Structure formats: C-alpha cells, structure tokens
C-alpha cells in the first residue's frame, strides 16, 4: 500500500542521500548487446521481465495482492490488460494461501509467479515456503516439485525488501537469511534494473522454487540501460563488479550501491577494493568469492539485515574454512544492528557508507 510514492518523494531529504543512482552494472551476461536498450528504472525492468515471461509461456501466471491494478510499486502494470484476468489476478490478503496456491499451480506444470506485497509480510507464508515448496521434490523422490521436472516450469515468489528511509518496523525488513537456511529453494536478489530483468527471467524459468527479493529502495531510484529483448542472467554466479587488490567486499541488492560509494572513498586513501555482487544467495557462488579473497587476503561483508545469523555469517565461516592461511585480517561484517528495524534512528541502524569505510580501513590496517 503504500511505499510507492515514498522512494521518489524522499529523495530530496538529506537522510537518504547515502543512496545515489549508481552504475555498478558493468558487464552483464546478456553480453552481445543485440537489440535496443532503453534507460529505465528497476520497477520498469521487473515489469518488462513479467511481460516477457507471460508472453513467452502461456502457462505463466502472475498473482498477489493488488497485482491486477499494477501492484503498489507498479511492477505489474499493464499485465492484466494484456494477458487477461485469468492469468494476472488479485488475491485476498492471505500470504500463506498465496504461496500454497502457487505450489499447487506449479505442480500441475505451470509457471507460478507470486507476489508478496512486502517481504515483511512473507512470514505467514514461511511454512508453505519452507515445509511445502522446498521439500516437495525431495520427499516425493522427484515425482513432484514446484513444477513438472522435465518441463521446467516452477514457482517464483517476488517480494520487495529492505529499507526506504522511513518504512518503520514492518515495511523495511531484509529476511533473506531465514530463507538461506532452507535447502530446496533458491534466493536471488538483484542490484540494478538490468540485473533485475535478467535474473527474474532466469528465476521464473528455473525448475526450482525461487524467492526473489527486490530492493524497493531502488525501484524508482536505480536507472540504467536495459536491453528490450528477452535475456537471462545465470543464477548462482557471483559477479566481480569492481576490480581491486587490497580487500574484497561482498554484498547484494541495494547495499551494493552503498558499498560502491565506500569503495570510491577508500580509493582516495589509496585502498583498492574489489566488489562482488553475490546475486544468488542460495546456492551461492563460493568460488568467485574465494578466488577474490585469495587475491586480496581480506574480506568485508555488508547487509542490511541484523548481523547475528545474517547471511554474512555464512560467507564469513566459508571463507575462513577455505582461505584461513591467506587471510591477513579478521573477516569484517558491516550489517544492520541486532535490534528490530527501527522507525526512529533508521540511519543509525543502517550499515552506512561511513561504517563500511571505517571497517575497510580497520581491516586493511589490521
């Protein structure tokens, strides 16, 4: 319901100045650059992906709260007019029902694309995702899953996540770590419009259930050239979006723009940072991160979710296991604080540029 105006509206305020439209989209998997590219924002890129998904597969369906009106963030604009109310439809407010329904729909060989209006509302559906979707294939010995295995349809659950400046307790959370503890699902988070389109199409066409978290802060804010054609970006492949030699920074989604600013600042002090976008958190690309840490000898992980039990902890443990002798400093984590997401003092809670910069320096000078 309503954050859709906030992101644009709030930009004028100093409080959110930390987010700048950014350009970490260096080289993408779509590569060949055939066809046209237009400068669009992230929600339009998602919208394009959904149009393509429905157009290229007449067994694809989009459903969720308010989606036939275009959704509160406008991601589903025009879908219902174009593809009809039988394929793009509103559901009641019932997250558990939405996901369970999606699993059944997918099990009959359809591509179910469910929207949970805010990631904060995904918890009523947690049981369906964790117990039903994730384990369907395993416990049936591959007879059933969220899709018929050899036809490759599937279930994708889209949900906007993360801070927006003043969303408060229930419109700001980053719940990705809960889902990264669940073998059987994939967790994907894009950082930019071009990434969002390519990754979402991959998720929709993946034969596994996928939770796709969209950085709502960037819906309007992030603008870049996005090819108009149908393209997919590989899942479970991280991308080095900035080369460096002194320290490796690992992140995903909206946090990468903050990290990139910290990298730029650090560069002024002569510190060369390598920045990796993990893109897929589960199953994640350990090799790319490991190779980078072997080169730099230092690693910093940053996410908005609280530090304790966050996905940064998993990356940290894996890197220590794999690169222990190569590490020249303890793994650094710059994350949300271990408090509920606050309404007041949001900037204090957040892993801001200065906190990251500080940790970069502390790690490099260890």
């Amino acid at each position, binding site marked *: *319901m*309503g*954050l*859709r*105006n*906030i992101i644009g509206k709030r930009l004028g*305020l100093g409080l959110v100045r930390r987010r700048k439209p950014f350009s970490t989209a260096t080289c993408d998997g779509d590569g060949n650059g055939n066809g046209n590219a237009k400068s669009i924002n992230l929600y339009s890129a998602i919208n394009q992906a959904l149009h393509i998904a429905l157009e290229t597969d007449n067994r694809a369906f989009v459903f969720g*709260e*308010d989606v036939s*009106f275009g959704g*509160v963030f406008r991601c589903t604009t025009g879908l219902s007019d174009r593809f009809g109310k039988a394929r793009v439809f*509103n*559901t*009641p*407010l*019932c997250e*558990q*029902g939405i996901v369970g329904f999606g699993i059944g729909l997918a099990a009959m060989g359809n591509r179910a694309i469910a929207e949970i209006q805010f990631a*904060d*509302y995904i*918890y*009523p559906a947690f049981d369906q995702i964790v117990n039903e979707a994730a384990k369907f294939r395993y416990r049936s010995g591959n007879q059933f899953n969220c899709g018929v295995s050899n036809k490759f349809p599937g279930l994708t659950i889209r949900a906007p996540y993360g801070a927006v400046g*003043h*969303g*408060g*307790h*229930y*419109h700001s959370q980053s719940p990705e770590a809960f889902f990264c503890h669940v073998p059987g699902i994939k967790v994907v988070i894009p950082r930019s419009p071009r990434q969002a389109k390519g990754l979402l199409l991959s998720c929709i066409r993946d034969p596994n259930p996928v939770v796709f978290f969209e950085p709502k802060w960037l819906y309007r804010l992030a603008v870049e050239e996005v090819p108009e054609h149908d393209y997919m970006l590989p899942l479970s492949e991280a991308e080095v979006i900035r080369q460096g030699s002194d320290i490796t920074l690992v992140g995903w989604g909206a946090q990468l723009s903050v990290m990139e600013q910290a990298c730029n600042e650090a560069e002024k002090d002569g510190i060369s940072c390598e920045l990796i976008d993990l893109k897929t958190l589960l199953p994640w690309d350990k090799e790319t991160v490991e190779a980078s840490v072997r080169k730099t000898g230092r690693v910093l992980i940053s996410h908005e979710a609280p530090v304790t039990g966050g996905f940064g902890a998993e990356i940290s443990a894996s890197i220590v296991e794999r690169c222990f002798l190569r590490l020249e400093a303890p793994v650094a984590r710059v994350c949300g*604080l*271990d*408090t*509920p997401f*606050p*309404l*007041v*003092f949001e*900037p*204090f*809670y*957040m892993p*801001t540029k*200065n*906190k990251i910069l*500080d940790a970069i320096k502390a790690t490099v000078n260890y």
Partner: protein
Amino acid sequence: MALSHLGASASRSSSLLKPLSSALSLRRPISGDNSPLTVETSVPFTSHQCEAPSRSVETNPKELLTFFRDMALMRRMEIAADSLYKAKLIRGFCHLYDGQEAVAVGMEAAITKKDCIITAYRDHCTFVSRGGTLLEVFAELMGRQAGCSKGKGGSMHFYKKDSNFYGGHGIVGAQVPLGCGLAFAQKYSKDETVTFALYGDGAANQGQLFEALNISALWDLPAILVCENNHYGMGTAEWRAAKSPAYYKRGDYVPGLKVDGMDALAVKQACKFAKEHALKNGPIILEMDTYRYHGHSMSDPGSTYRTRDEISGVRQERDPIERIRKLILSHDLATEKELKDVEKEVRKEVDDAIAQAKESPMPEPSELFTNVYAKGLGVESFGADRKEVRATLP
C-alpha cells in the same frame, strides 16, 4: 458493489429520519443531563445463529453530547495527522480512521476499561477512546519521547496498558489470535471481562482468523471478534476479495451480528449485547458496516478504486458525527451554535497538543537498543557518521 452500497445508504437515510420524528413528537424538555432517552437504531441488526438485540437504544443527553465531542475530536485529530504527514513531520506509515469514529466511541460506551481491546494499525482513535491523550497521540506520531510508545512505535503501534488497550499491530490479521489469548486469561481469572479483537474486511480472509474463531469457540472464550468492514481492503473492494462479504456469518458455528458501524448508538447496543453473550456463551462476531473517508494509508489517495460520489454520498447520508448532531438538535439538547463551539474547542485542543508534542524531544539514541529484550543487549555501535560517540550499552 459501490452502487448497491450507495443504494443501501440511501435507504438508511430515510430510516434515520424516523426515530427523529418520533422522538420529536415526544417533545422532551431541553437537556436534563442524565434523563433517559430512547433512540431507535438507523437500521435493524441482522443476526446469524443468535437473536438480535432490540433496535431501541437507551441513552441520555450527556452521552449524546459526549459522543459528539469525542467523535469531533477524533475527526479533527485525524485531519491534523494528515497535514502533519504531508508536512513530513510524521514518518513511516499512517492509517487514518476518519469516518469510522462511531465504532470506537460506541464500543467504549458499552464496556469498561477492564475489558480488553486489541486492533490492527488503524489505531489512533481506539487509543483515544480508551483514554489516551492527544499529546500522546501526536508525540507518538512524530516519534517523540512523550508518545504513548515512547516514540518508538509510530502510527501503527499505539498501546495503553492501564486501560487494557493491547494496541496497535502491523501485520494484517495477526492480532486476532492474540485477542483469543487475552480472552482465555480473562476467563481463567474469572473476572467477568471480555476482549474485543478488531480487524478489517481485508484481514477477514487471513487464515489466522479462522484459527482464532475455532479456538475461541472450542474453548468458549469471552472473545468478541469485531470486523470493521469499511468495504475496502487497501484498494480492493470486499467482494473482489471475499466469496462471502457477509463477515458476520463467516464464523459458521460462531454467532454473528451485523451492525451499522456509522451509528454510535447501534454500536453501543451491539457491544453491550455481545459482551453479555460472550460471558455466557463464548465468542461472537460483530460486523461493523462502516466507511473510511481517507485512503488506506497516506500514499493512497483513496479515489482510484471508488468514486468521489460514493465518498460524498456516505458523508451526506451516513456520517457518524452528523447523525449524532441531528439527534442532539432534534431533541433540543443543544443549539447549533453550541455544537459549533464544541468543534472550535476541539480544534484548539488538537492544535495545542500538536504544539506541545513538537516540544517533546526525540528519544535518546540509546533507546534504539532498549526493549529488545527484558534487559539490555550489550550492543556496541558507532553513530551514523563516525563523529558520533561510540555507545556501549548494558
């Protein structure tokens, strides 16, 4: 739906006049504060699995004037919150209650502060009806120390423990099972009190509602599930989201009552009836047929999924404040000017409270870490820029 809804309200307006004319013929003497008055509700109650209470509601001049004042205050307060939000003095999410005031005041008139109320995020007016002050409201809205939740909750999270107002919950439908827990505790301690668990028509389709209905019926809990049906779950009309928008019947084996939620006296009568019922027989659903003038939240203009005619139609035909105003005038309990003066007074009260709330400081930064657990968390942190002091808390 919009059309049939309007049709229904038009028929209501004619029935509104009925009790007035009959009351006029009684030619009651002016005022006489507590002298009893009987007023007929706008429309009959519709019942499910129970016998509906009488349409004749006992009231008195004092109560009617209190209703008028309280609702005018709530209305003014919500309008002021709208302006404060637009001036960016209120952050976060903000859901306004104007239009639905009769539910809050009518319910309060039927129960005591020992009864519990728990609601969702459209909670400002319920808080006030439970005795919360305007200063606490505006300070909380603006995230100040003087707020009812110390400025840490914001619009969606108002609470008042001393009068058993359990808040203020952000997730659609989640508060209703909590209400069952409150009711069980009340039953266990045999203190003859009940819990009113409020939710909207949107929340009525959440699975938790049915879980709550079942356990409250299974264990005969003194729980009253109040569906505030304002006919739109966010931007979705009730009939688009519910196979049966007859929410008072949705409990199946749980009795229900449909009430004109724009008529404070009908709400009072229904809540009185429901409390007696719940203490004797267990849960009951009250569906309050009401209307919100504002959009769902501040980023919803509220005009894309319904017509302006529909909104102005409700304002003209069913407005809860205007209904009471007409009753007061028709019974000669006050003059038009006296009522205008009341409205002026509440406007000033609201303005004063806002001024006072603005003086209240923001919470201490350390409050970010308090109340996460019973004791402190031992968090160590830097400020947003590293110039701030490092804070280590217990």
